[in-house]
């Protein structure tokens, strides 16, 4: 347990961003091994055997996702989801920044397993530098014969296209990503049909997260069984966690799954800053439910965190100290969702607006108790009613914070100002 550098092993090595530098660390050996040791079928079986689950948020088993593709329907497409926009998440950027070729190699291995001849990397609009880096890496890999016709003499053809998004959070949702990639308005699509059956351009499509794909070269080289030995039974391997908030050393930390959260906080992140104590933390990213200090000994395991009422999501870990006003945090998050709602379905479009207007009144101490009660009701009218998970998750943090910090929420009613901030100001003065 503890920190385990698998994906980030060579990070910091000189020239890792270049093809030569990456090859020096054994880069593209995974792709060679895939061609040498596996057929597409055995490769899918190997990934299944590794038990790796998607790193994008939902934690769906990757091998199973791949096996949903209907047989004999071609062309198929693979999209790498690099539209990392979850508040508190910055691991994909880190992985691309440090070792773009690792992603390209993973993408090619997945393409080989799925018999995909055209793969896409859909990268968030704001990740401009990373997009340029990826484009250069793809060009270099193409020049070196890793991309194109008859790759490394294997007879397998694959082209890779880097596509920049326009900066919408919703395009991280796989069907919205596909719509956007097709040049349409970035909005989720009605399911079914699911992307595995009818996705990009109406063809079978797999969408995988950056980190998921980055794991593939290692699984291919060292075997699914070995990978499975890392982490816990239900959560195999490592994950890169994006630690942020009121801590001494925020940053990305690759941890073996199953490590207690306390270890991440105290040993890697150097504990809470300014000697303050932990008030709450949010795993997974802006969408996920808040957890309390009593949960700090939970293992970094998808199922364990889920049982505690939250989720490891996309790997964020936001720590908040005692001076934090949870109403304020809720307000900020709700504003984010109001801004990012695509407007397609009614409960998300209007609900996030309603929520955010109420939260602003509450944080300013203007709301009545009846309004606070209506907030909970509005959230219940949104959760489970929306077209896609964005609208549902827009209520999760608020509702969990309201449940755990009810008194703090109620203290805001009619207070005329934020009582927590007032207290903190008094303390500092």
């Amino acid at each position, binding site marked *: 347990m503890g920190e385990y550098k698998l994906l980030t092993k060579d990070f910091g090595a000189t020239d890792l961003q270049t093809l030569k530098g990456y090859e020096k660390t054994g880069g593209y050996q995974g792709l060679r091994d895939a061609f040498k040791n596996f057929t597409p079928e055995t490769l899918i079986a190997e990934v299944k055997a590794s038990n790796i689950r998607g790193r994008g948020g939902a934690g769906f088993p990757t091998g199973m996702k791949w096996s949903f593709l209907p047989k004999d329907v071609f062309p198929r497409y693979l999209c790498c989801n690099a539209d990392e926009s979850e508040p508190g998440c910055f691991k994909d950027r880190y992985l691309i920044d440090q070792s773009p070729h690792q992603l390209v190699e993973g993408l090619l291995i997945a393409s080989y397993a799925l018999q995909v001849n055209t793969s896409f990397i859909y990268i968030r609009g704001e990740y401009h530098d990373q997009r340029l880096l990826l484009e250069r890496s793809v060009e270099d890999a193409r020049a070196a014969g890793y991309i194109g016709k008859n790759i490394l003499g294997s007879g397998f053809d694959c082209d890779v296209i880097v596509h920049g998004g326009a900066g919408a959070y919703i395009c991280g949702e796989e069907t919205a990503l596909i719509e956007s990639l097709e040049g349409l308005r970035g909005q989720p699509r009605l399911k079914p049909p699911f992307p595995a059956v009818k996705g990009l351009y109406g063809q079978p499509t797999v969408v995988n997260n950056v980190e998921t794909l980055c794991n593939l070269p290692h699984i291919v080289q060292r075997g699914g069984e070995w990978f499975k030995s890392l982490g816990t039974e239900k959560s195999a391997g490592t994950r890169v966690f994006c630690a942020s908030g009121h801590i001494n050393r925020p940053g990305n930390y690759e941890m073996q799954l199953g490590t207690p959260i306390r270890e991440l906080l105290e040993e890697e992140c150097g504990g809470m800053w300014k000697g303050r104590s932990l008030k709450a933390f949010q795993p997974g990213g802006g969408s996920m439910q808040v957890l309390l200090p009593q949960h700090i000994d939970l293992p970094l395991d998808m199922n364990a965190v889920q049982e505690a009422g939250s989720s490891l999501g996309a790997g964020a870990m936001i720590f908040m100290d005692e001076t934090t006003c949870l109403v304020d945090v809720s307000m900020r998050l709700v504003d984010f969702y109001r801004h990012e*709602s*695509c407007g397609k379905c009614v409960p998300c479009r*209007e609900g996030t607006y*309603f929520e955010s207007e109420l939260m602003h009144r509450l944080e300013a101490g203007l709301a009545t108790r009846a309004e606070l009660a209506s907030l909970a009701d509005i959230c219940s*009218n949104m959760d489970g009613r929306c*077209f896609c998970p964005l609208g549902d998750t827009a209520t999760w943090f608020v509702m969990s914070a309201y449940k755990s910090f009810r008194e703090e929420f109620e203290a805001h009613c009619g207070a005329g100002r934020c009582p927590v901030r007032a207290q903190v100001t008094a303390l500092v003065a």
Partner: protein
Amino acid sequence: MAETGTPPEQVDDGRVGLSIDGRELRVPKGTLVLDAATEAGIHIPIYCAHPKMDPVAVCRMCLVNIEKFPKPQPACATVAGDGMVVRTDLPEVTKLREGMLEFLLLNHPLDCPVCDRGGECDLQDFTFRYGPGISRFPITEKVHFKKAVQLSDLIELDQERCILCWRCVRYYDEITGEKEIVLQQRGVDTLVSTFNDQQLTSKFQGNLPEVCPVGALTHRKYRFVSRPWDLQRTASVCPECSYGCNINVDSRDFEVRRFASRDNPLVDDMWLCDRGRYSFDRWNSSERVRRPMLRSDDEARDISVNEAITQAARRLKEISDEYGADSIAVLGSSASTNEELFLLERLARQVIGTPHIDHQLDPFDGISAAEHELGIAEIEECDTLVVLGTEPEEQAPVLTLRLYKAERKHNARVIRLNGDVSGTDAAEAAKGAIRIGLIADETNRENAAAVAGKLASVGSVRRLTITRGMNGRGAKDLGVLPNVGPAYAPAAKVGKNGRQILEALAKGELRGLLILGPNPALEAAGDLLERAVKAAACVVAIDTRPGVVSRHATVLIPGHAVFEKAGSVTNVEGRVQRIRAGLPPASATPTETRVLTTLANEMGAEGWGSGDPLAVNRAMRDALAAYAAAGNGGRALFSAAAVS
């Protein structure tokens, strides 16, 4: 085996059994829960769902509880499954409907008192029926958008009233394929608009206010005109062309205020073209023939309608006696009802005894029932559609939407060729086709016959000819043509066609004319028409509008306009559809069928009865087997062998 409780074996009849609110029903596989509920008589409120469009499930109004599903499911997008247990009557469904309406009303301007849609607005209606009743939104300032945006000279958009159901966007995507309306911005700032604020150019804009469930898209021609409850609604047929789109005529204070679509999936599929929809104003014209008149030389005097008919009978008989029956011509019109045309043809050939009868100017040689074989809905069964010239779609614009539907939903190929294309070229273009639909209009019908011959070497061919005038098809079926009688039976003696009749009148070769108007086709003859009616010794005219004919008529009897009388009309594909009287007639004279019957009786006919439109309709069905078979709303089909 009964003891073991084995359920009786279900026969696979292509249906699934489900229960909705405890009501058990079986529906065809693939039926949506929403449609199943409608069948069971259970109302589920919808905004984004539309019977003619693919589901998008964005308004979330139709969410229902389905057992074994973790969350409420949209009824509009969920396919009914065997053994499904659907509940719409649970408190949680009531609550979510209240919640959804609360969301919809948050940023709605609530300007119902000045909204054209008030009284027939789904947002208003569902709020009354399912809404929460109170508002708990503490913020007084809503999100504001532009009001009264002019999208074209026909359509106005109120962006604040819009509930973003996407129907208008999808209408342009799925129904017309023109993609003129788009969504802009996102989240609560999302708005419906045209790209770059361009004006709409579609020929089918008038459907937008009808697909809009609220008052966001409204007709400029109906702006502040009426409340729906002040309108009197009459089911009828659009008089603009021969396609026969079903409409509701909405009138108030004896004036037509709008045409609304009336879904007939076999004909219009609920869409109207703007030319038809916005032609309603024409029927409010005060320019009407109002009194029977008798004209001698330059003197005209008012007479009673009975006297007018007597005078007409006497004068026609005088000409017949003096110069022979074939010195009289009879002109009908494609704007008349089947009943009128049926009587007119009998009057001409059997009572007066003249072969000179027509309803249009130009000859219609080689007419064959084969050119009317293809039905409108059958267009969707063809894998290849060949359209000759631009005329068919100019004549009957709604045809374009059916062609697009065949293209989009059934992957048909639509090939638009020049009207004078050679058969060889057409066959080359249609290569690979199996079931071909060939569509032409009257101007290209001769070439269409040649093209059809060549296309037959490629695949099976069925033809549709777009006739001109509301009842152009009926006029032909009923033999108001010089070369064929009713049911395309060859005429015993072939008479002169419309243009020849006018020329013969002008030259004095023909002396008497019985004309049933109004006849827009004749107006194309221009000066020839005037010379003809001036030269004729006697013109008996039954007409609605003052014009050349009424100015020179010896005996003039006011007619009833199309919305002032009952009867039936036949559309391009032979579908016999009823029209009903929705407005009072402009003159207090009997309707045309009665006038024609009285005239025939005065001229010595026997057994014509009273001339009541319904009685005439029965007589017509007795006389024409195809019309008896068509009944009301069916297609009158004649054997393809009948050729003049």
